[in-house]
């Protein structure tokens, strides 16, 4: 089965919970789909078995030996990426969306398209199974597609190795990469915090997840920071028929686990929080 762990925002403890889940099974495939800020490899230090280049898009580039500075390209570009800089037609790498229109219409064929190829997908082995993660290079786009590549790889490995649990650590936000993360999973776990903004994000997240017919769970992390807000979130979830998988208290050992490159159950196996995480995980799996 595939379990995706997401959160409206990062920093809610989503990665710590994914890491905990990953070490509670004998053998898992762990897919880190937070491709914009992949982190779990820090805890698990997977071996480097496979690497794949991911082409996230293209950027236009001018060959100035051919360009006559006619300015036609600038009038076609809808992304304001082409302008005169010191009297010279110049393309901004940041603004270029890679649509290729300038290259198609340039009368002297001075513009070519260069692949953005700094992003990668990695796969390897870690102490509880296999791990796949993606890394989007700074400034590159289309993380949704990279998420799909990571997920496909995870499925392929799971099949080849006969592993039945795939844990997916999702990206923050509610954009394409999040949608790519939850499409076709069995369960989605939303990690939230008892803050007003956390509740706000949770509502926006559920607005999307509810469009997919998925078993959805909510974990309220650090629930004791604001018990009134926790209650509000619980009531909200009850009202829309979403199960609370559990509540976890604030525990400074969570950070200590991370600092020591361990998951929570690995670092403090006999603590209350580890026990609770185990219960939550059993709940979700059954």
């Amino acid at each position, binding site marked *: 089965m595939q379990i995706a762990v997401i959160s409206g925002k990062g920093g809610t403890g989503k990665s710590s919970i994914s890491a905990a889940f990953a070490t509670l099974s004998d053998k898992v495939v762990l897919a880190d789909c937070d491709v914009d*800020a992949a982190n779990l490899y*820090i805890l698990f230090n997977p071996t480097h078995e496979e690497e794949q280049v991911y082409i996230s898009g293209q950027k236009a580039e001018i060959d100035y030996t051919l360009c006559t500075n006619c300015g036609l390209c600038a009038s076609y570009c809808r992304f304001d990426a082409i302008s005169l800089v010191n009297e010279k037609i110049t393309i901004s790498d940041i603004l270029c969306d890679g*649509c290729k229109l300038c290259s198609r219409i340039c009368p002297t064929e001075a513009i070519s398209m260069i692949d953005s190829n700094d992003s990668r997908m990695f796969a390897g082995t870690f102490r509880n199974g296999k791990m796949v993660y993606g890394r989007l290079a700074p*400034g590159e786009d289309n993380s949704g597609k990279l998420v799909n590549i990571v997920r496909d790889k995870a499925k392929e490995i799971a099949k080849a190795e006969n592993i039945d649990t795939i844990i997916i650590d999702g990206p*923050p936000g509610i954009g394409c990469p999040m949608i790519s993360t939850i499409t076709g999973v069995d369960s989605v776990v939303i990690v939230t915090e008892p803050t*007003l903004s956390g509740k706000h994000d949770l509502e926006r997240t559920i607005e999307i997840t509810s469009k997919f017919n998925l078993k959805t769970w909510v974990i309220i992390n650090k629930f004791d*920071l604001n018990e009134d807000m926790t209650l509000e979130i619980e009531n909200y979830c009850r009202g829309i028929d979403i199960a609370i998988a559990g509540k976890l208290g604030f525990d400074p050992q969570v950070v200590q686990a991370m*600092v020591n490159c361990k998951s929570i159950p690995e670092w403090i196996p006999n603590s209350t929080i580890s026990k609770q995480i185990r219960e939550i995980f059993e709940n979700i799996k059954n």
Partner: protein
Amino acid sequence: MINPPNIKIAIASGKGGTGKTLVSTNLFYTLQQNKYPTTLVDCDAEEPNDLVFFEGKLVKTYEETQKVPVIDKSRCTFCGRCHDYCNYNAIFILPPFKIIKVIEDLCHGCGACSVACNDMAISEKDESLGTISCFDIAEKSIIIEAKMKVGVFSPVSVIKQAIKEAGNTGIILLDSPPGTSCPFIHTVSTADFVILVTEPTPFGLSDLKQSVDTLKTLNKKYGVIINRAGMGDNEIYDYLKQEHIPLLMEIPFDKTIARNYSKGEIVVKDKPEFQEQFLTMFNSILEQNANSSHQR
């Protein structure tokens, strides 16, 4: 206060949840209390949150749109040129069956298909990408919120428009989107200075390094705020020293801060000494900015 400065400061963090919103809203509040004309732009368009902390009066709201092609099948000859020109695979065509369809979710509105079509079969319509809303919070104190429409391929257009809306005068704070991909770059590339908010943990450090590398390639001035100081390890401090990155401020881990923040309260409200820290930091940013040759 004399001569209100003109400066654009982006507040960012590798991932969300490290305190970026806490810093943005509290810095905004502090500047407001000190009568600086300040605009806070919430560029975290997927999950804008800054308004949770303030009461404001909505003064203006509008939709940011993009063009999406509309194909007139009675004119279309199914030549396939539009499909060939589309670099985003947003046009689906099956000539033998006379099927042609624009997949609007994939369309970036580049206009290439319209250029491609020789049979005048393509016109364009406006599709909403999200909304830009402006709120008056106090005198000369404005919040502009960029909010992406759910399911849109990228928040970049609404973010760009919200930043444009803020103009170029006074102090402009940009609460930036998480990560280091396009939305982040589009936001910080317009700023004079970037405040990176991070945590003293291995995850925080890894994200910080990625943000720093990105800002270096963009040639930006930046400094770091360590949030939840005292909670993790010290590696981050070694990194800052080694890279000569200014440590702008430390926010200690404190349950009352966390609790007040969780209620949607401004943490510095009843803490003048804390406001003082934000103000000192702001002044040091002004100084660092004035000392640089970098011009807006």
